[in-house]
């Protein structure tokens, strides 16, 4: 135990004193907050900029339908000739010109062109199409003798109110929030596993290429060294995570108070556009964010982080022991990265689609993907027994993988020269 403590201590200090580690730890939150500010600033810039779009409507049916808005202003060129319209738009450097032809005799539709220097955004195109097709539909309905006002009356707007069985209300937005938090946790976990697993692997390779390994294993059991390395590095990871949380919180609070934004009022542009009638929904949103089970989310994050990290870093350590240099690790990396990527994909496609579906449930139990997938599912509420099964299997697998890794590690650290094949690794298990 004394030696294990010494090893953990050394490994921890070796990681934490590393210059890249220090820079990453203190710079990442700054970069993160800086990015948020930059994005907020840019989107503000974007939204204050007004686009001017010219319209050349040959039939003059549609031009009145294009209403000026905060971000876009329409100019009517229908009275002039097309060539003139083009010239003016070009000279004034307007965003573009919409050219709507006469209605086609057979189809009853016009041909619509957008002329511009830059291709318009998806939203702009959609807006143009919708405006024209709405007008056309209405006109055709009227032409068929249907009373439009009756149709308008018949249109019903349905807002589904989501409630769980315990009667707690939540907004539709809350699902997006859950997705965001789950997704962020899963993604963060994957990044941590890859970054810290790699650290463990590099440290094993370092000891091997430095040839200090033989001196150390003449003092301690290889398993002790492996365990100490994995534990010491995980402590470094937890340190970094803690620093991030503290620094991130301080920075965010600092920045938001500096910019005079009350966090409770911070809204997305979309929700800001919603008028007073939607206010209760926004309140609900804020309540939802507050209501997320942060304590359990954080504790499950720590549990799955440790479980996933130990599992993968044991494999990383075995790979490090099997090779002589980092360039040789490539062929063994694929089986590690694959389940991680798979977990992320299942998370972002399957869990988002159906958090409690078969695929999501299975992948949240398979130990190689469970840390990521289960973390993404947890905000949606997972029965406790499913979490219990998932964690137990994860822990059991950890022991199994650690046992196998320790065997490969024990043989590998003293093997130099040829890069081993999978077959040879399998043979090492029996040495």
């Amino acid at each position: 135990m004394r030696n294990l403590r010494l090893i953990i201590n050394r490994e921890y200090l070796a990681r934490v004193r590393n210059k890249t580690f220090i820079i990453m730890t203190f710079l990442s939150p700054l970069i993160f907050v800086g990015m948020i500010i930059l994005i907020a600033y840019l989107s503000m810039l974007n939204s204050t900029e007004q686009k001017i779009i010219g319209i050349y409507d040959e039939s003059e049916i549609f031009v009145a339908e294009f209403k000026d808005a905060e971000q876009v202003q329409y100019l009517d060129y229908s009275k002039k000739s097309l060539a003139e319209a083009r010239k003016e738009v070009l000279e004034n450097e307007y965003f573009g010109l919409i050219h709507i032809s006469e209605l086609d005799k057979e189809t009853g539709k016009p041909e619509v062109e957008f002329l511009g220097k830059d291709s318009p955004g998806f939203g702009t195109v959609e807006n143009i199409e919708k405006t024209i097709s709405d007008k056309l539909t209405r006109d055709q309905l009227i032409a068929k003798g249907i009373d439009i006002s009756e149709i308008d009356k018949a249109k019903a707007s349905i807002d589904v109110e989501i409630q769980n069985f315990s009667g707690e209300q939540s907004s539709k937005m809350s699902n997006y929030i859950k997705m965001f938090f789950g997704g962020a946790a899963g993604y963060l976990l994957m990044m941590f596993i890859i970054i810290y697993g790699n650290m463990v692997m590099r440290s094993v390779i370092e000891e091997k290429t430095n040839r200090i390994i033989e001196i150390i294993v003449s003092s301690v059991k290889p398993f002790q060294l492996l365990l100490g390395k994995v534990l010491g590095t995980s402590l470094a990871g937890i340190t970094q995570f803690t620093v991030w949380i503290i620094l991130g919180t301080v920075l965010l609070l600092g920045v938001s108070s500096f910019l005079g934004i009350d966090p409770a009022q911070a809204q997305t542009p979309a929700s800001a556009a919603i008028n007073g009638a939607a206010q209760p929904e926004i309140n609900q949103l804020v309540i939802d964010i507050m209501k997320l089970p942060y304590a359990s989310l954080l504790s499950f994050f720590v549990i799955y982080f440790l479980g996933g990290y130990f599992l993968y870093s044991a494999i990383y350590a075995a790979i490090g022991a099997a090779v002589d240099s980092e360039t040789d690790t490539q062929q063994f990396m694929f089986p590690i990265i694959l389940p991680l990527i798979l977990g992320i994909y299942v998370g972002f496609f399957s869990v988002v689609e159906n958090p409690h579906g078969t695929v999501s449930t299975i992948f949240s139990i398979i130990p190689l993907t469970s840390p990521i997938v289960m973390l993404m599912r947890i905000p949606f509420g997972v029965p406790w027994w499913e979490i219990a099964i998932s964690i137990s299997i994860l822990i059991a697998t950890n022991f199994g993988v650690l046992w196998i890794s320790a065997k490969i590690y024990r043989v590998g650290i003293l093997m130099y020269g040829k890069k081993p094949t999978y077959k040879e690794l399998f043979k090492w298990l029996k040495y």
Partner: protein
Amino acid sequence: MENLLVAENIYKRFGNFTALNNVSINIPKQSIFGLLGPNGAGKTTLLRIINQITMPDEGKVYLDGRALHPNDVAHIGYLPEERGLYKSMKVGEQALYLARLKGLSKSEAKERLRYWFKKFEMEGWWNKKIQELSKGMAQKVQFVITVLHRPKLLIFDEPFSGFDPVNANLIKDEILQLKEEGATILFSTHRMESVEELCDYIALIHRSNKLLDGKVSEIKKEYKSNTYEVGIDADDETSLHRDLENRFAIAPAKFKSIQDDLKLTIKLKDNETSNDLLRYLMPRARVNHFVEVIPSVNDIFIKTVTQNA
């Protein structure tokens, strides 16, 4: 004499390859024991087994009469053939860490390190990183780390390879002094000069088998061939040469002498002694030089290995 370390009937296989085949050695207390053998003979595997880095498939190792126990690492100091340290760790910190892994307390380790740093004139190195040191300097650090915990048994794998002549000499003197202070030393090498100079006992391993072991002086006695090197002066050298040729098995010899005499090696029959040869020579010539030919460890090594090839 009492043995400090006994390895009994050690077998070790790696897959289909047998690294050690029924190898036993006994290392007497306070002796220097040389483990000889060509490259790939199995020396390092045996040293690793004694260090408990590798487990033998069969056989037992005893230290001080008791079966080897994991805690015994504190009584063993090991300098592997491939030497290295953490490159980006400071010398002092690193030495402390490795010493503490061997069971020393922090203050104890610090105190002893000061002594050795002073002795080897490396006082200014404490806060230097290994990567800032030259290779020879790093090797000194490594040697200090090996002996710091005052182990009963010191194991050096090819101790002189990679050391420059100055450091090699320094290490040799230290090894001899450590022996005087009571340590037992086991080292492996394929360099015979160092064996001749240092070893009290040797074992020869070739292709996973032990071919020979014992006290160096006894092995030499066993391998000597009752041959003498003589330098003689006679009035009629040609007839003397002819007479000797008829009487003994002779061959020309080369050695340095100030005399311009006849230099020969003379092999006697098993029942003859040096006195018989002297008695024969004295009436016929002046004997300037008379030495028994004792085989060097190198000769024995080559002879044994080629015999078993």
